């Protein structure tokens, strides 16, 4: 059960990708996309950057399935919190049932 050692090359590639992502997200922010796209684009780039950090810097890609489950649980519960809270706020303005 020896650990996996990630090579410097991979680390460096990820580092560059993160820098590119940062420049990209700042640059596209100045364009106005229709509708909710502004937020979607920004969050997509942020999610990709976060995924790179998690997978390579945090060695998730080489970790046991258990670690994936633990991390997945956090995302799942976060999703519960958001979804059910917004089930309230997003339906407040609907017409009353009666």
């Amino acid at each position, binding site marked *: *059960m020896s*650990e996996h*050692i*990630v090579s*410097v090359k991979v*680390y*460096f590639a*990820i*580092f560059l990708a*993160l*820098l590119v992502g*940062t*420049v990209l*997200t*700042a640059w596209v*922010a*100045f*364009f*106005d*996309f229709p509708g909710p796209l*502004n*937020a979607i684009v*920004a*969050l997509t*780039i*942020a999610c990709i*950057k*976060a995924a790179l*950090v*998690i997978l*390579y*810097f*945090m060695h998730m890609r080489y*970790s*046991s399935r*258990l*670690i994936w489950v*633990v*991390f997945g*649980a*956090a*995302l799942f*519960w*976060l999703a519960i*919190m*958001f979804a059910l*809270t*917004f089930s309230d*706020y997003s339906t407040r303005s609907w017409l009353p049932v009666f």
Partner: protein
Amino acid sequence: MAESYATEHEVSHPGLQHHFENMDQQREASALGMWVFLVTEIMFFGGMFLAYTLYRWKYPESFEVASNHLDIWLGAVNTVVLICSSFTMALTVYCTQIGRQQLQILFLVLTMIFGVTFLGIKAVEYKQKYDDNLIPGRLIPGHPFNPSVQEEGKPADKHKLHLIPGATVRNVELFYWIYFAMTGMHALHMIIGLGIMLVLLFFSVRGRYGPEYHNPIEISGLYWHFVDIVWIFLFPLLYLLGRHIGHG
């Protein structure tokens, strides 16, 4: 996996605690422990992200106006600084794994320097907000939230709020409270991280960590990367959301 523990008895490493059977088990436990801890951190920040999402959804114009008043350049530079520190932290772990002690110490120090730089830039930003009277509520007694508002027809002043239709000063204040709560909590995590690294540095210099035993470096790295990830989300959510409407 549990079966393998009892039979083999390796030569005891000084870093092995008495209640673990071997180094593998200890390493697995500490890594899992840190990941579980990060789950609690995700939920902790999650509460604030929820509040952010709700009010951004409720008051989009005010949030765009308020966000435009943040300094995008300082924010972007800080993002780069933090990514650099994450990179050097990853290299610290790598150098420990391959047993290069001098490089390990070097990268650890670099990581700390980047961390301190981040906090310094953050302080500059906070000072700017203080000067523009953008500290919400009575966070600083005697210095209420009282930004000056850009009037139509006057030359643009970057110290003034440029309100667009639908935006109100009260809701801008709400944004700034969320901004200070989130970045403040993030900065607090950075400070804790730097404190942990001081301890790591102390033991690294004494040659405690090497290919055999490096859990503390590894899991501190996990923590540091997590703090980086929080910022990766904070940057677009706080600094970039209203850039397309132009007004600074």
